[in-house]
Every structure is written in C-alpha cells, then in structure tokens.
C-alpha cells in the first residue's frame, strides 16, 4: 500500500526533490567554488557559524552557540532543501559524524561513523557522490571537521 511518509521522515519539507538528476558543477567548478568558500570562511568563520544553515551548538541548554564547551562540541549542517544533514560531534578520539539522507519522500538513511583524523574525514568527503550536488554543504563540513579536530588537538 502506498501512502505518504510519516511526519518523522518529512517534518520540514513537502517532498524531497529528485536527487538523481541534479545539475552537477564540473570538478573544476567545484574546486574553484571550494577554494572561494574556504577563503571566505577564513575571513569570516564566526559569521558563517551563526548563519541560517550552519548552526553550532553546545549540548548545554541555554548555552551560547560559540564558543563551544571543550570536550563536547557539536555542529549541525543542513542542505537548503533539507535532503542531507550532518551532525558532527567532537570526541576524545576524533570526530563522530552522523549523516542523514532523505533519499526520497519515503526512504531515509542515517549513517554514524567515527573519524580519527582530518585526513580520513577529508577522504570520505571526497568520496561522497552528493558532494557535487551540495558543494557548499561539503565545504562547510570540511571546515567544521577541521575546526573540531583542531579543538581535539
């Protein structure tokens, strides 16, 4: 029987767009874009962290978003269309990333995994096929991961 997805899967959107037919930028465009994004981030990290779609939070209720409490840092990133979401948590051994992907209105995949180095997180980002669909999100993911690893150091 076909019927709409329960609210838990679609609370923030009517329907996921067809992610199989995105307009992909070329790798060259992506490199230029990410270079620009990184450059921009270096000059305005604090501004980016308080942006609409990049939310840095502490798990302490009522705590200010930045700076983060040492040992318990959390960053949440969401694509503009709500299809892809990342939650990064700094831990004693590295960074744990939870990737939530609404593959369609009806299918959701959550993956939680640990990274012990910035390089391993970077390699994983570079392998994700959705990096071309959401270049800004992945640029933010890399930056946030780097920041969390630096905090861990």
């Amino acid at each position: 029987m076909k019927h709409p997805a329960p609210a838990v899967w679609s609370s923030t959107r009517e329907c996921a767009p067809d992610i199989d037919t995105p307009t992909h930028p070329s790798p060259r465009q992506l490199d230029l874009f990410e270079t620009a994004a990184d450059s921009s981030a270096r000059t305005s990290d604090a501004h980016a962290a308080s942006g609409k779609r990049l939310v840095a939070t502490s798990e302490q209720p009522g705590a200010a978003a930045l700076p983060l409490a040492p040992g318990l840092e959390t960053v949440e990133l969401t694509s503009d269309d709500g299809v892809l979401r990342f939650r990064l948590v700094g831990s004693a051994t590295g960074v744990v990333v939870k990737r939530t992907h609404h593959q369609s209105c009806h299918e959701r995949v959550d993956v939680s995994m640990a990274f012990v180095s910035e390089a391993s997180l970077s390699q994983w980002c570079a392998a994700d096929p959705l990096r071309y669909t959401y270049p800004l999100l992945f640029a933010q993911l890399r930056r946030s991961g780097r920041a969390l690893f630096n905090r861990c150091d």
Partner: protein
Amino acid sequence: MPSSTAATKRPSLRQVTRSPQYFTNVIQIVEEIASARDASRAVELLQQATQRMGAEVSIFVSFVPEDRSRASYRLLVACDPRFVVEYAAQARYRDDPWLEHARHHALAVRGSELKTSSEAQRSLVRLAERFGFRSSVVVPAPSRTGLTRAGVLCFGSSVPDYFEGEGYGAFKLLAHSVALEFHEWWLARIRDELIAQAQIDEEDRRLLALQAEGRTSKQIARDLSVSIACVDSHIRRIRRRLDVPTRHAAARLALEYGLIDPLKSQRSDS
C-alpha cells in the same frame, strides 16, 4: 585497511577468546550500550566492542525494508566510512545478503556460510572484502514476530578464515548480546524521535493500542466511556500527526516503531 603483513601478526580468534578477561571486557561494553546518549557514543561503544571481541571492523544496521512508504536504514559504522559511501552509492540495501539473512533468520552465521544468489550480491561481498570484511560474521537482531524492523551486526577481519576456527562459539555468544543491545538502543531512539515529532501522548498511545487490537470505534468508545464521534475525531488527529492515510496504518506504525507493545495486542487478539 591493515596490510597483509600486519594482519598476519594479529592473534587468532582462539587466542583472543581464551583470554581470562574476554567475557568480562565485552560485557562491560554491552552494559553501557543502553545508556549511550546519542549515535556518536554508540559508535564509540561499537568500536570498543569490536576490538575487545577480537574483530577488526564492524557495522550495525537497523532497518525497515518492507514498506517503501517508510523505509529507513540506520547504520553505526566501525569500519572505513568509504565502504558505506560506495555501498550506498550503488543502492545496495535491496541486494544485501547480510540484510537478507537478518530478515529471515535469528542466528549468527559466518559470511562464508551465506549463499549469494545474484551478481549484485556477489559484488557486495567483494566490496565488503575490500574494506576489511574478508572473513565475516553476520549476527541478526530480530524484532518481535510480525514486525518488519530488524537489525544486523556484521563483524569483519582482514585475515582470511579468521572466524572459521576455534573461538567462534564464544565469539558468537557475545555477538548476539551486542547485536540485541544495539538493536534495542536504536528502537528506543526511533520511538522517542517519533513521539517527539508527532507529539504523541499517553492518551494517543492508549487509543492506538486499542486500534491495534482490532477494535471498532464503537468498542473503543464503550471501553473509554466516550462518544463514537470523539473516538473517530481523536484517531483522525493522530493519523494526521503521524502522516498516515488510515487508522490501520497508524496502528501498524505504532507497533512497528514501538509506540505500543505488540505483545499486549497479540494477547488481546487471542
């Protein structure tokens, strides 16, 4: 992934399981799983359990595969994360022999014992081997009868035939405990998430339980001493919040996601 040279230096499963502290060390982790505050802590515990049990890598999947209207896969990964990227990129969930085993069986098996029936399944096995599951154990974590949600915990080693020799019995015994604890942990998270997002309260759950028992509005109204119109209106509101088209679908969803106890419903049916 460890090199073959490093892999040959690893102690055998027999040596690991003969350690006097083997059971105690793993049970310590099992006892912590239920109180894991979030997925990041759960991943850390899975990594520790994997290491203490003598495996190199593992992955836990909790899934509802049957109904495409609400299919979900939730993974805890204690292996190279690029494995999941490659796996998901090819939408392997429906071709996965590990998930297939977990859907229909309750007992752990070695990967070598699983029959692969298609090229897609064989391709998945080869992919897993590339990422440290050269020898593997597949441990189902079934839900109660009649529910489609299931869990599966897969352990791997880069050493060929690592799980084939002595020590497998002890390993399997603990593997079942670890798998069941992670399965229960996920179910609790999913249930809490659904309750929070759909704002389901105790009264709603009571009504859903009565609906799941197959009672009519008239019977429910009599049980709760309210009007039939009141029952229908309440169920309609619940249905809207759960975003399902019928009251039966609402009851089914409540059972599947643990909002109500399926045992109580079954007892009432009999």
